[in-house]
């Protein structure tokens, strides 16, 4: 089935020409979709290249579980099309605004509450089209579930924040929506919740989201009607509106309110790490593997604690608003060297989103 709609527009050639011009003039480009995630990363100085006009679902075959979509397509539009077929994006990406595009989802690689159980954005990427520094649109990967020919450039683009090329199209694996769901809330102290989650993690329970917030463990159960009903009976607790997960994902819970001026940090940690003793307040998502921290502690203090626990810490508050000057955890020297090598090979004149991730990239 090929979907044609009003909002179907192929601007690839114009985008390529724009890149060729930047390449000739050696002028940096700031690649922008819906501009909903501008806060995420360092400030880019450059001429704006908007992907918004390059939009539309190019190919969606629900039976193949694959959708190919242009980068400027609004995420909401894609999700609505999948929903109409009883399918969804398994990574449950945050939008952070109605204008969010598919390209922005891929470039930032951010995933929602379902991530530990279903996978991250990168796990669902099967192929992509990318404009290279010479202004050529190339295709990597494809519209098949398995493909190990050549290097996996499609996944490399996820989270690279546009520093290696302009994403114009992506092919994604999609999932059927679960047959049944139920969310619940269980009052319990943090450590008890973390221990329970570790125990449940070794059991085949239909859990697809787990957060500790406001003195209680919040759980989402999804799966077949029988298992959801049985687990619901077994766990008890208070019913919870499913909207909680969207509020958590979109950072609309009171915890995230802008009235709180302490910087917001995201800690990404291995499973089963106890509470880290950092001053401030914490919300636990991903069964404790993703933590949101409001804290005045220094970046070094926060990063040291995260690194010692085997993870890393990202500052979500922009520098201009009191956040850390380096939002992302600095890379180990050898890893940084190969980042520079890769950037030099794929973007020799530094025209793609220079400095968005790190000053040197």
């Amino acid at each position: 089935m090929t979907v044609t709609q009003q909002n179907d527009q192929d601007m690839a050639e114009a985008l390529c020409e724009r890149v060729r011009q930047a390449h000739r003039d050696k002028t940096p480009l700031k690649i922008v979709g819906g501009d909903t995630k501008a806060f995420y990363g360092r400030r880019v100085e450059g001429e704006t290249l908007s992907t918004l006009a390059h939009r539309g679902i190019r190919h969606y075959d629900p039976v193949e579980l694959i959708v190919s979509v242009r980068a400027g397509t609004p995420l909401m539009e894609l999700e609505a099309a999948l929903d109409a077929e009883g399918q969804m994006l398994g990574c449950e990406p945050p939008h952070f605004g109605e204008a969010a595009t598919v390209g922005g989802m891929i470039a930032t690689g951010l995933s929602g509450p379902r991530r530990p159980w279903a996978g991250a954005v990168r796990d669902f990427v099967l192929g992509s089209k990318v404009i290279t520094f010479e202004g050529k649109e190339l295709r990597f990967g494809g519209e098949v579930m398995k493909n190990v020919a050549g290097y996996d450039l499609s996944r490399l683009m996820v989270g690279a924040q546009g520093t290696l090329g302009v994403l114009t199209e992506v092919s994604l694996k999609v999932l059927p929506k679960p047959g049944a769901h139920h969310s619940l809330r269980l009052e319990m102290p943090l450590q008890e919740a973390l221990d329970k989650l570790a125990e449940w993690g070794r059991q085949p329970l239909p859990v697809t989201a787990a957060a500790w917030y406001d003195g209680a463990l919040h759980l989402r159960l999804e799966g077949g009607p029988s298992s959801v009903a049985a687990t619901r009976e077994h766990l008890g607790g208070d019913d919870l509106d499913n909207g909680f997960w969207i509020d958590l994902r979109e950072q609309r819970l009171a915890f995230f309110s802008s009235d709180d001026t302490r910087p917001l940090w995201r800690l990404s940690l291995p499973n089963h790490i106890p509470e880290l003793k950092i001053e401030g307040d914490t919300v636990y998502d991903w069964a404790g593997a993703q933590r949101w921290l409001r804290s005045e502690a220094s970046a070094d203090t926060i990063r040291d604690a995260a690194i010692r626990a085997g993870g890393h810490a990202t500052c979500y508050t922009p520098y201009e608003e009191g956040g850390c000057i380096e939002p992302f955890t600095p890379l180990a020297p050898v890893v940084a060297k190969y980042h520079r090598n890769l950037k030099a090979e794929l973007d020799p004149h530094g025209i793609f989103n220079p400095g968005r991730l790190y000053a040197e990239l």
Partner: protein
Amino acid sequence: MNILYDAQLDGELPDNDKQQVLATLSQALPDMTLLHREEDLRPFECDGLSAYRVLPMLVALPHTLDQVETLLKTCHSLGVPVVTRGAGTGLSGGALPLEQGVLLVMSRFKQILELDPKARIARVQPGVRNLAISEAAAPYGLYYAPDPSSQIACSIGGNVAENAGGVHCLKYGLTVHNVLEVEVITIEGERMTLGSEAFDSPGFDLLALFTGSEGMLGVVTEVTVKLLPKPETAKVLMASFDDIEKAGKAVGDIIAAGIIPGGLEMMDKLAIQAAEDFVKAGYPVEAEAILLCELDGVEADVDDDCATVRGVLEAAGATDIRQAHDDAERAKFWAGRKNAFPAVGRMSPDYYCMDGTIPRRELPHVLKGIAALSEESGLPVANVFHAGDGNMHPLILFDANKPGELELAEEVGGKILELCVEAGGSITGEHGVGREKINQMCAQFQPDEITVFHAVKAAFDKHRLLNPGKNIPTLQRCAEFGAMHVHNNELPFPELPRF
């Protein structure tokens, strides 16, 4: 065109004096096993693609990471190519040695370093066998999901290098979805950690880039994998069809019903007969095709899903549907599928296994094409198929002792892969490009795309010392391959229809 390294098409390799390299390495690494006599090198001359054999200059069998580091540093400074090998089960010649190169064998790194049931991870050395991880995790109710049919033998390092899959990867993912962190040593002898035990890491996703990179970017020295809880139950349905197209359509119908089976495999008549002769799996030998559909998860859901799938299969025209009534019968059903390659191997002196992927809807069309190629060449082809995710394994039967048959089998294989590319698919779903499919890469990718692959390689290995000649063809090779095909009036290059 010969598959072995060809300096004219693949680029000049440094020509080092064997005695000198041997002397330098022995001096730098006095405690490392370093084989150099022909009779000692002989057992290492091929990997799982045994039709191609090359005697390496030297074979290094280190047992410490310091040795690996020193070896790589020394080879880097001497300009000696290095080919890494795990268990050597690869089917695309990815670990085929080079006459002018050192074969670095990682099989002595066999330790499971850590298994943490609470964090649900295992940290292992690269030579650990795939199945050994699940065996070690079993007492905790956990397992490592990717299960290549070679899992009793293949190493986790090789799995990472090939992004190996298995019969359960439609639901549980490939290696790339189940590895959290790898330690690597670069050709310059630097150690780096890619990924982490957390769900993500800062910077580029180099872990994903390294997964499936066929030993071209670095040597994997440690792997941390995610462990999953064993499903409470797993049930298998076996459906027979009198027409392979109906079976193919049934696969789409199951997925359209909103079900993602744990495994969904298809075999054609020749494969069914071979498997039945070999393992007595109870397969219906008169059927044109069978589908094996495994449903796993929580007992109550699995029972519901079994009922749904049974309905779908009936509607799709299955002539017989059987459900394994206990674990023993379930294991038997799978034994037939998992032993399909050796089973076919018993029918014929040699077989050649292909690994193309296609969008599932193209299955009838591609199967027809394969049947036509089989008829035209006179070589029988058995089809084994990871149907759920569109990964085909046509097995071409031939006899290498008959003059010209190996070449004929290669030719048929190459055409099958080109058929897959034309159908919008890929030349390899899980076995890798290696040396075997180096020419077909030119059918799947344009020169500009291949140039980007070379740029990625250059970022990690400027002097092309790690596994040169594998995975990514040179543009010269593509020009030559294209010219040959134009000559045969079959497949013009570079203006091929693509995807």
